[in-house]
């Protein structure tokens, strides 16, 4: 058993070299490629090369197989089962080639589709039409595209096998809902065969996972070829294409018929320790079998080993603040934990650039994140162990609440002010009232100016005095307000403080919980989509819509959601009863005390205000009365004078009839004189008349 390696300028040439060496050195009469052949290809998502294998190389391999051995080839893409594998392969433009070469493709997603059709009362038709023609595969080729997972682990054959195991496990979980005896399609038989073949590599799990009877390969050991292409290497944590990533180019391809040896050799050439990798504990038995033997590498020229440790650091920069909080991880969660931070990084970068902290919680009892804007909890273990975590519930009163501004008006905002802020706020409000006082003062001056043309001084003085009195009353009122504001704001702040002592507990809405069922492939996306609106995350929604034809998203189950909500509500109830109820009487007592204090203060202000108003009255009223009296007298005298004049006129009028011509003249003169006279002249006339009297 040897490992063949080749290095050349193009991947196609390198693959051709490898295949030539394979034919020459490994294959013989006993150990030869026989039909039917199962070709498992590494395709993690809809992303192209070097995340997935190079389609050009795949065509070359298929052509080589058909030319040299057999055309009976079945291709199995390693996509998670919810992917529409047919569409993904078409998206690569491989449809025409595979059709031309008559290659059959095993679509895992179609098996589940068939089983669901059978369940929906088309059983009989299917049963009659389909006669299974499946023959056990005699050769399996596992074509992997090498990549990086982290500092210690490569994406290699072991990753592909592990992923296949996960896929088929979830596939059979899905099918087990339906009666398996009813399904007799070729695809299902093939899937059962692959499952049985896969279990060879997982000795640890032999006890827990049963073989499916009937199609177990008769020959226990079939020819399995492992091709690991390391022509271009990239970090395969995220399956989203990023044009800024530059792959490393070791330009190597490895091939072997031993899983253990090719893994040892690949890790050796990339200066990594296999025992430190994530997959070592899973495949330990197989890896340790060949540890003592010397590895043999068949190659024409000396290959230089390639350090890829810096690739992750240099190439995949942390785009924004996604923080991971891992608890005790199960095996599946551990594998998922490799992908999810980078995947989310790529998925959410456009929409959440301004978010400071997104926390990812995976595993049993994960650490508690501090001040996270969003918390995403993956898996039942994490969900259960964090139900009572401090971040699950929020005290609404302790959340920062800032007012928003419309033009210059602040709306909302209920924060407690500290001493300086409070003093500033008091001064701001007092300044407003002081401005009003200044305005009133300017108004009174303007009023005085406006009545300066009044002829009667007493009347003018009276008007001024009454206006001044009113103004003084208003100003006094405002001055009391100024004093009141200080107390009012101080006490309001105090009340707010006391009220906030009472916890207002709500369920934290910024937590997204994703069940373990959704840990494969992209099944978690609908849970995120449910929480984030189109307006909030347009790029994320676009990605989701774009992927709909390629991925069968299942909507989050309402039952599961309801269950979680009821659990949370229970937690909320108990927390409220535990925390808030004992605090209530004390808070109410404090509130009452403060309110009483305010009322007392306000009473004092009222009394003071009354006294001040009275004083103003006392100051102004006598003066006003005096002026009013004077004005009254003046008016009386004027009245008298008018009567007198009237009588005089009457007398003249009577005389007129006696002496028409003379009286007429006099009357006209008098009239003119009277019209020219003003009230002062009248007063003087009256005085003169009094004197003469």
């Amino acid at each position, binding site marked *: 058993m040897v490992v063949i390696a080749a290095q050349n300028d193009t991947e196609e040439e390198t693959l051709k070299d490898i295949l030539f060496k394979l034919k020459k050195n490994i294959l013989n009469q006993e150990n030869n490629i026989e039909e039917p052949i199962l070709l498992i290809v590494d395709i993690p998502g809809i992303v192209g090369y*070097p995340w997935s294998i190079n389609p050009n190389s795949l065509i070359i391999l298929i052509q080589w197989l058909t030319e040299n051995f057999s055309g009976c080839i079945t291709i199995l893409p390693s996509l998670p089962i919810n992917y529409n594998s047919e569409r993904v392969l078409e998206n690569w433009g491989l449809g025409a080639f595979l059709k031309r070469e008559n290659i059959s493709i095993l679509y895992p997603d179609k098996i589940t589709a068939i089983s669901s059709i059978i369940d929906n009362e088309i059983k009989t038709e299917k049963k009659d039409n389909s006669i299974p023609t499946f023959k056990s595969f005699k050769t399996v080729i596992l074509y992997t595209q090498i990549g990086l997972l982290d500092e210690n682990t490569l994406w290699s054959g072991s990753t592909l096998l592990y992923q296949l195991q996960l896929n088929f496990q979830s596939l059979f979980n899905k099918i087990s809902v339906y009666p398996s005896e009813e399904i007799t399609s070729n695809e299902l038989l093939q899937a059962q065969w692959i499952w049985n073949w896969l279990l060879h590599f997982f000795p640890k799990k032999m006890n827990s996972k049963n073989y499916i009877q009937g199609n177990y390969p008769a020959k226990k050991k079939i020819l399995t070829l492992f091709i690991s292409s390391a022509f271009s290497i990239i970090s395969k944590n995220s399956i*989203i294409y990023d044009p800024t990533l530059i792959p490393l180019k070791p330009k190597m391809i490895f091939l072997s018929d031993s899983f253990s040896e090719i893994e040892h050799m690949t890790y050796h050439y990339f200066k990594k320790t296999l025992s430190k990798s994530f997959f070592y504990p899973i495949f330990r038995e197989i890896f340790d079998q060949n540890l003592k033997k010397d590895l043999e590498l068949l190659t024409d020229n000396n290959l230089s080993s390639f350090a890829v440790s810096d690739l992750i650091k240099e190439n995949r920069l942390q785009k924004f603040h996604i923080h991971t909080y891992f608890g005790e991880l199960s095996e599946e969660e551990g594998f998922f934990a490799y992908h999810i931070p980078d995947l989310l990084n790529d998925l959410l970068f456009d929409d959440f650039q301004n978010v400071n902290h997104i926390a990812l919680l995976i595993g049993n009892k994960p650490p508690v994140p501090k001040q996270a804007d969003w918390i995403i909890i993956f898996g039942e273990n994490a969900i259960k162990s964090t139900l009572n975590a401090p971040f699950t519930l929020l005290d609404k009163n302790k959340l920062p609440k800032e007012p928003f501004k419309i033009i210059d008006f602040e709306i909302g905002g209920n924060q407690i002010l500290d001493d300086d802020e409070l003093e500033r706020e008091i001064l701001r409000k007092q300044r407003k009232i002081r401005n009003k006082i200044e305005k009133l003062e300017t108004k009174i001056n303007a009023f005085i100016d406006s009545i300066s043309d009044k002829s009667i001084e007493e009347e003018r003085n009276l008007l001024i005095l009454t206006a001044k009195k009113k103004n003084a009353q208003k100003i006094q009122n405002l001055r009391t307000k100024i004093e009141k504001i200080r107390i009012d704001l101080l006490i309001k702040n105090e009340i707010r403080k006391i009220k906030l002592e009472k916890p207002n507990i709500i369920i934290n809405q910024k937590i997204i919980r994703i069940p373990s069922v959704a840990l494969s492939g992209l099944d978690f996306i609908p849970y995120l989509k449910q929480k984030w609106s*189109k307006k909030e995350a347009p790029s994320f929604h676009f990605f989701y819509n*774009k992927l709909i034809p390629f991925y069968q998203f299942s909507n989050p189950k309402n039952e599961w959601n309801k269950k979680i909500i009821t659990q949370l509500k229970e937690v909320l109830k108990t927390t409220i009863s535990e925390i808030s109820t004992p605090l209530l009487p004390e808070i109410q007592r404090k509130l009452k005390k403060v309110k009483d204090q305010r009322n007392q203060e306000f009473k004092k202000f009222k009394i003071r205000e009354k006294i001040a108003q009275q004083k103003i009255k006392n100051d102004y009223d006598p003066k006003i009365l005096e002026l009013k009296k004077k004005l009254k007298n003046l008016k009386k005298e004027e009245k008298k004078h008018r009567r007198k004049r009237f009588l005089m006129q009457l007398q003249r009028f009577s005389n007129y009839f006696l002496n028409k011509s003379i009286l007429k003249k006099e009357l006209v003169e008098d009239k003119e004189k009277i019209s020219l006279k003003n009230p002062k002249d009248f007063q003087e006339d009256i005085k003169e008349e009094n004197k003469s009297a």
Partner: protein
Amino acid sequence: MLKHDNHEKNLKNYQTESSTQAQLQYNMKIIFESTQYYQKNKQFQYELFQIPFLNLTCDISAFQEFWSAFYYYILNTNANSIEIILNKEGSPSRAYLIECTNEGLLLNINSMDISLFNNQIKEKLTLKEQFDEILPIIKKKYNLNIGNIHIYSNNFIEELFSIFSHTISQQLDFIEVIVKYSLLFIQARNRNNKEKIFFECFPETDFTRFIDGINETFDFILEDSKSQLEDTLISFIKNCFPRKKFSLSIQSSTKVIAYLVDSRNPSILIKYLPLNPSLLDKHMKNNKSKLEYLKYLKKKYNTPTNFIFDLAPILKNIEMFIQSTFPVSLYRLDIIFQGLIKNYRSYEFEWLMHPSPLIMNEQFRYWQYAFKIPLNIRKLAYWNIPRFVITNAFENIGVEGKILAIFGDNFHILNHSNNFSVQENYFGLLWSINTNKIQSVSFISADSIKELSQKSHQIYSKNNLKKKQNTEHCKTMEQFSQQLQLNLYPKYGYIHTICWISTDLIRTFMQTLRFDIFSSNLMYWFKLKRMLKKFKDPDNFYVYPNSPLYNLLLHKKSGSFLKEILPILVELREF
């Protein structure tokens, strides 16, 4: 003044009657004289002249300003140069020494003694060695430090003059001239060129490096016959050009030049527009005066649309473009397009137009938002758009692959004709991408496309599909593309994506984004939708295999697709 009038007369005479050499000499003389005059008097002697080799009238001061901002991409910062023209045997026949000012303005030209170079040619010295050897001699003899040495072959000069003579006789329009000159320079810099057309220089400049890069990437330029390539490119560019009449002004810090562009006919007319000097005295530093100027242009020359662009951002974009290292990476393209989009969104800062577009009205924007149209040109996310396009275009390909872009007038014939015969001007460009870099571009000529297409058509026409609806057209295009992919495999290898793009679509795209969207009425939204509908029509655009983005476009209504995509392309957050 008298001198000025004479110059105007001369210019007209030379433009119409004189030989190519005489005209070139006259215009070069004007450039040299005006620089000399400017050195003494700090103003230009003449107003107008013909740009050498282009037959395009231009304001001399504006030209000189543009040249001083642009020359160091073509020449070294020390612009003094020696120009050597070789005869058919390869020995120097003529040599000129060109003296320039510190600003790169051409000051003087002197004929040189050829015997100076004879030894060097005999000894077969490299250009660098020639330069090093000649440098002290020139310093001693002419008291001048030279910064460049250029060598032209006789064939190159002949070719150059033949294009120029065609330009003067007005047999070629502006696009044709530019394409012909570009191809000539590319050909001259190609080391494998067998026709002894070459142009060498030392030290290398951005311009030569750029042409060399194009030669490296576009390896097909010499493979096919040049005239066929020229014809294809010219007809392609002309068909892609929006059919409009508009005025285009370019403003530098002190000058403005205006041209009338009339592309309503197949031959594109570019004409210099003389301007009223009193209008230009205001220097047009604010937008109000610029708008006044544009109104004046509209009134005087009856141009329905009038643009004015600042020179500085144009130069910046040219610099970004010309300084690209080859093979060009997708990251570099990202940056170049970022610059272009930044320029596009900077209305009122870097460009202005008349009639004023409604979409740029701030009050109108609120109405737009009220109707849930999240389009704000001023807030285009220039940093995001190129990345978004590249990511979606290369998602299924990855960092390595081949894309075939087939251009044609229309693909209607593929979908509708049973008796298939390709008469449209088809040609394909096969882009090879390697580690996110455009490694090479191969040209697939109209004939080979025709041949391969016919092969494909024979296969799929057996199905006798009735092609009436878009979905059926798509099926036809899919089958067609599949067959084309298989046919091309033996020669070109695996092609990941085949993209059919009609020139009609490119024209509509350019017209919508440059003219329709900035219209002064409310129709811009419908025109955007109309453009998207064209993308959906397989007669104009088809992508095989259907990428996720294209798939979404096909299955969504244009309006809802726009509303979904615009929040990603426009930064709607208020900071």
